[in-house]
């Protein structure tokens, strides 16, 4: 019988104590999960699954993670995640276009760094402005970025409608542009960045973020460098969003225009972290799965079961209403999101067959 109690497993060094998965059972579970994601899924999944479900799910998880670091961990509300995704995507595109022979993964990283710089700039007001007033700063970023990318043709290589196209996704001589290849690429990038984020929130930086989130005046009083902490939150969050934007543009869609990163995308990312759970790493996956699957489920249901009852144009409105209701239900019933359901299950599994 597999026991999850963790008895006999002690941390004898701080490094062990800071590990993301302290129990060997959890590490084994992760290994199985990764094996499934890398081996079983590519063997089994169809192109539809890759392109319509798995890739957007992974990319949105990453975008959610970016926002979660900023809002869930560091407590700075942002409505501009899509802007940083756009910056990442367009910067990566321009690096590809203008630097000969640059590996595309490097340009993804460079795109993320450009987004991080933009994030720091839009985070500067957060040093003086708090709470809701800060929405303005991130919304300003949202609108300025959208406007700039549409207005100045240089960013999209003077494409008349501002559309950018994916570079050839070739790495070490392997062509990754098949759906399975793009899935594996996305999976690898997302896994690496999630591992990084897991480490960051367990480091002293992550602890500082939480202190600032809970009360920045108190954090300043006990000697936490609030300025650096907040700006790093903006930088790292925007980096994650920027890479997510590159993946969204190049691994998921292939071509994208600035309006693909509008305010609605920002809201979508926000919903991921509300539904998944603020201040949780796992929650981003759960929230993204929810946001990707629910519309598919609804449109399939609307297409088959309720074909005669609901006019096709109304499904979108019903979907909107349902989303709104779900958000409110989550905020009321489960303010810590789907992640806290998981936490509860895990806690019960650990003491099973006893009850807590």
């Amino acid at each position, binding site marked *: 019988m597999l026991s999850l109690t963790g008895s006999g497993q002690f941390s004898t060094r701080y490094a062990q104590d800071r590990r993301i998965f302290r129990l060997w059972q959890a590490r084994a579970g992760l290994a199985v999960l990764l094996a499934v994601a890398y081996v079983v899924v590519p063997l089994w999944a169809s192109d539809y699954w890759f392109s319509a479900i798995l890739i957007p799910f992974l990319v949105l998880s990453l975008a959610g993670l970016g926002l979660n670091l900023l809002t869930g961990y560091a407590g700075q*509300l942002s409505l501009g995640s899509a802007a940083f995704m756009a910056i990442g995507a367009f910067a990566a595109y321009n690096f590809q276009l203008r630097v000969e022979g640059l590996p595309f993964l490097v340009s993804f990283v460079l795109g993320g760094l450009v987004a991080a710089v933009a994030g720091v700039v839009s985070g500067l*007001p957060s040093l*003086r*402005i*708090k*709470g*809701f*007033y800060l*929405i*303005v*700063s991130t*919304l*300003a970023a949202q*609108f*300025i970025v*959208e*406007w700039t990318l*549409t*207005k*100045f043709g240089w960013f999209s290589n003077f494409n008349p409608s501002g559309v950018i196209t994916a570079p050839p996704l070739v790495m070490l001589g392997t062509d990754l542009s098949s759906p399975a290849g793009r899935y594996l690429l996305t999976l690898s990038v997302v896994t690496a960045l999630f591992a990084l984020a897991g480490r960051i929130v367990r480091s002293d930086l992550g602890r500082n973020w939480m202190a600032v989130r809970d*009360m920045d*005046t*108190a954090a300043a*009083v006990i000697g936490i460098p609030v300025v650096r902490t907040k700006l790093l939150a903006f930088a790292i969050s925007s980096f994650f969003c920027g890479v997510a934007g590159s993946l969204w543009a190049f691994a998921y869609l292939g071509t994208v225009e600035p309006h693909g990163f509008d*305010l609605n995308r920002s*809201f979508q990312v*926000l919903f991921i972290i*509300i539904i998944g759970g603020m201040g949780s790493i796992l929650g981003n996956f759960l929230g993204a799965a929810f946001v990707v699957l629910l519309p598919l489920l609804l449109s399939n249901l609307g297409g088959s079961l309720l074909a005669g009852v609901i006019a096709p*144009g*109304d499904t979108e*409105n*019903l*979907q*909107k*209403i349902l*989303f*709104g*209701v*779900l*958000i*409110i239900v989550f*905020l*009321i019933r489960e*303010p810590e999101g789907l992640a806290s359901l998981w936490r509860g299950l895990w806690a019960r599994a650990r003491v099973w067959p006893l009850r807590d």
Partner: protein
Amino acid sequence: MDFFLEVLIGGLLAGVMYSMVAIGFVLIYKASGVFNFAQGSMVLFAALTFVSLLERGFPFWGAFAATLAAMLALAFAIERGVLRHLVNRPPITLFMATLGVSFIIEGLAQLLWGAQVHGLDLGIRDEPLEVSGILLSRFDLFAAGIAALLVLGLSLLFSRTRIGLSLRSVADDHLAALAVGIRLQRIWGVVWAVAGFVGLVAGLLWGARLGVQFSLSLVVLKALPVLIIGGFSSIGGAIVGGLIVGAGEKLAEVYVGPIIGDGLENWFPYVLALLFLLVRPAGLFGERAIERV
């Protein structure tokens, strides 16, 4: 010079229209500390309901009364279904709940009344009025007049009635208000209802101007910088903020637009608001928060 004045006054009058939406925000923020993102969709809902009733043969005032009733019902439903369950939660949670509310209202409005664009005629001839060589929009003047009446009415409500007294005490301190026997939930219902009424008036004016359609709910994005400049908790601030944003936006469009490219009215108000915030972090008339550990 005449041209400058014309642009300036046109901008100021347009700004009043933004203020109309911002006032709805301020009312709710003052009384319940909720940053109500759904105000824009309330404007849409009101305008859409009104127009649809009008098109189904209701007389003007009949449609107005019916829409008002719908807004009141909506307000109390929000209070009962959402806010009541979120007492004592952090403001960010309440804000996100109003995001959910705005989704529901937008979906509902379009489900009920369809998504097509409706024209709305309030019977004001929109021909320019000439005052000492400056052309003014008759409609904008009318809107400004309505806004002035609205502000007057609201300030009377706040300062001269018993309900206003309770409203002010709730705005001051929820717990203390509860302790002296004010029924918090009813006050919240009332405030949301008043905000619904403001939304209706704003919806009619905006609807007459832009046509009643989905994009009406986006005026919330115009009202936000107005609110920020004025401060979240001041009705006067909403008016002043609206004037600043309206004038700044028009002037920038005319004088800066040709230099860096048009279409900057989407983001210019936000930059303006940021500049104000850097000097006064709680807006021009907002209450400065005192931080205690």
